[in-house]
């Protein structure tokens, strides 16, 4: 619009003369442009409302009412406030599930990030075959989760698993990876780390492409070794990329359900159940669904993710300031 006006200075005079008449016209035009803007935003708003807001609202509603199978069908479940949340918090499963969720999330992310970063730095040296090898590392990401999770669960099988066989070859007693309550959580974490490494590798590697090569040259001239270059250049310059990688990883990992469900069903007992698997079990895992408490656990999970999201925004603001 502005460009058009600059292009046609001669018309400006005429326009000024007609300024009085133009005032309502301009207002009309502004209103119309606002409507156009709204029309452009409308599909997005409709999409957000239909696929994000409404499900969220329904989930909150589910968690605040006493849904039995009967009232679920008839739709007249009584409002019970925080009762479902109280039930869930008082449940003996809650403590362990929360602890498992946190251990699962933080141990997974720590290893995924460290290994992903190491591999990214390694592949950044552009040796021969580097692109091929890097592509191979993406395989865990490309495989359907049901395939990788089932494969891990076979590998960890206590009767005929390849992991126990390897241990046997080097003379270590077999471990009941998925059948012992001491090892089940470790097993699903190992599998999850393997699945998450490519994601960290790809994002950190692309972050590395933005670090100017001159910095390394200058540092080398000043006599900085490889470790110092990493500590003083690579790591600080990767900080924004690292932050988003960690946050995304966190949100993804908090809600991991399929991997654990396929490998161990959260068992044995509750040994590897997290808030996500517990929520599913409450809602769909038995013959008599308990939608209310299941939704309550889901909401708690959303809250935890939200807290970390806000934390991220805060850290990012401070970095920008």
């Amino acid at each position, binding site marked *: 619009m502005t460009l058009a006006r600059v292009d046609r200075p001669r018309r400006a005079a005429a326009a000024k003369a007609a300024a009085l008449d133009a005032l309502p016209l301009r207002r009309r035009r502004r209103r119309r442009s606002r409507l156009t803007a709204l029309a452009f935003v409308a599909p997005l708003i409709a999409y957000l409302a239909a696929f994000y807001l409404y499900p969220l609202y329904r989930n909150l509603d589910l968690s605040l009412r006493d849904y*039995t*199978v*009967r009232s*679920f*069908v*008839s*739709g007249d479940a009584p409002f019970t406030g925080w009762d479902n949340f109280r039930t869930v918090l008082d449940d*003996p499963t809650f403590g362990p599930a929360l602890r498992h969720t946190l251990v699962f999330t933080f141990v997974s992310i720590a290893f995924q990030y460290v290994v992903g970063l190491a591999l990214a730095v390694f592949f950044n040296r552009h040796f021969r075959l580097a692109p091929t090898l890097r592509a191979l590392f993406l395989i865990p990401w490309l495989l359907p989760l049901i395939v990788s999770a089932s494969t891990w*669960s076979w590998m960890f*099988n*206590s*009767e005929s698993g390849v992991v126990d066989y390897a241990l046997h070859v080097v003379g270590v007693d077999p471990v*009941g990876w*998925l*059948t*012992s*309550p001491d090892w089940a959580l470790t097993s699903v974490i190992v599998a999850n780390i393997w699945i998450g490494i490519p994601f960290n590798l790809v994002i950190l590697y692309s972050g590395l492409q933005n670090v100017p090569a001159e910095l390394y040259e200058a540092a080398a001239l000043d006599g900085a070794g490889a470790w110092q270059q990493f500590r003083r250049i690579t790591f600080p310059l990767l900080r924004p990329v690292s932050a988003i990688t960690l946050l995304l990883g966190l949100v993804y990992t908090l809600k991991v359900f399929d991997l654990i469900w396929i490998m*161990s*069903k*959260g*068992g*044995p*007992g*509750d*040994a590897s159940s997290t808030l996500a698997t517990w929520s599913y*079990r409450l809602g*769909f*895992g*038995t*013959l*008599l*669904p308990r939608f209310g408490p299941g939704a309550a656990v889901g909401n708690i999970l959303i809250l935890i993710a939200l807290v970390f999201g806000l934390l991220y925004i805060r850290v990012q603001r401070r970095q920008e300031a």
Partner: protein
Amino acid sequence: MIPTRRTLLAALAAVGTLASLTACAGGSAASGAAGGTYAFWDPYPQFDAASAWGKRVSRCGTETGVTLKRTAYDTTDLGNKALLAAQQGNAPDVMLVDNPVVSTLVEAGILNKTSDLGLDTKSIQQNIIGAGAVDGAAYGVPIGANTLGLYYNKKVLSAAGVDPASVKDWSSLTAALQKVKSAGKKGITFSAIGTEEGSFQFLPWFWGAGGDLTELNSAKGVAALSLWKQWVDDGLAPKDVLQNTQTTSWQEFATGDYAFGENGTWQLGNADKAGFDYGVISIPAQNGGSAPVPTGGEFVTVPVQKDTARYDVTKKIVACLTSDANLLASDTTLTYVAPVAAVQAEQVKQNPKLKPWVAAVAAARGRTSGGLGTKYPTISQPLWTAVQAALSGGKSAQSALDTAQAGAQKG
């Protein structure tokens, strides 16, 4: 701007016309069959429209003069799908569901009593239809029944010097397992997974000790769980029973290394393909005799419809699906035992291997029977958790079942 908007409008109009055209086409296709379309759901995704089962279903539609639209869901998914559909007011006309789900759906108020529909269920075995009855009223017609037994590998047993006829109670079974183990083979495999399957497989032992589902931590319940725990601890059963579904447990047995496998009627077809001689005995009770086993199998149910005029046709469809001739054919396809004595006799004549299973089904008990109804799911979940906790070595049988009982009482 204006031309684009015009094009957009034109495009929208075109799409709209197309949509209404296809809608018309859909409508006319549906009204092609004289009586309209009736929806039918079942938990057999393994059978497609070209399978014997799929054809039988559509033939029952044709015979009643309607189009029967069949949709197959995974069995664990079907109950929730049914609840959702009922909530939206579009439940199917006929639905085949696993028997313990019936009481949940009745609790939700979405199933019709068979007596209200005027369906004849007199010829059906009491204990089989009892698995789908709530407060004495049946809410469906069983399509067939299955249950659990002990498959054994003849070669492994004879190599270990065990006579299968000697297995009469728990102590003789454990002794047989020990003999097999010392002969260098593996004892028994079953499924103790943390789902309904785990409870299903544990129930014959629990009931075989005289256990009562309303009192999980009684001495009898503890005895049953201790038996399983002792087997796993002594290496008579593999540790991975904790992860085994009934299918993976069958695959273990089919390797030919195991002497016994606890599994269901539905594996008979696979047993013939396993490549070794096998036999079947009933699961022994603690002190001899056959243990009561849980009834498996599906019920033909009729969900409540707003348009009650549909029931007339629905009733005919159900009658067709559960007619003696069709039961014989369906239960042969599914390797189920028919719920009607006359058809059972016919089945045994065709396949003598079904004989022990007919006896087992006659002694079977519904999981939701005995007035448990929807209490059963709230007992079953703590029960399988207890089995997992005890077998994994996390807890003793007693303390695992104490926790389970406390959980079951809370509901």
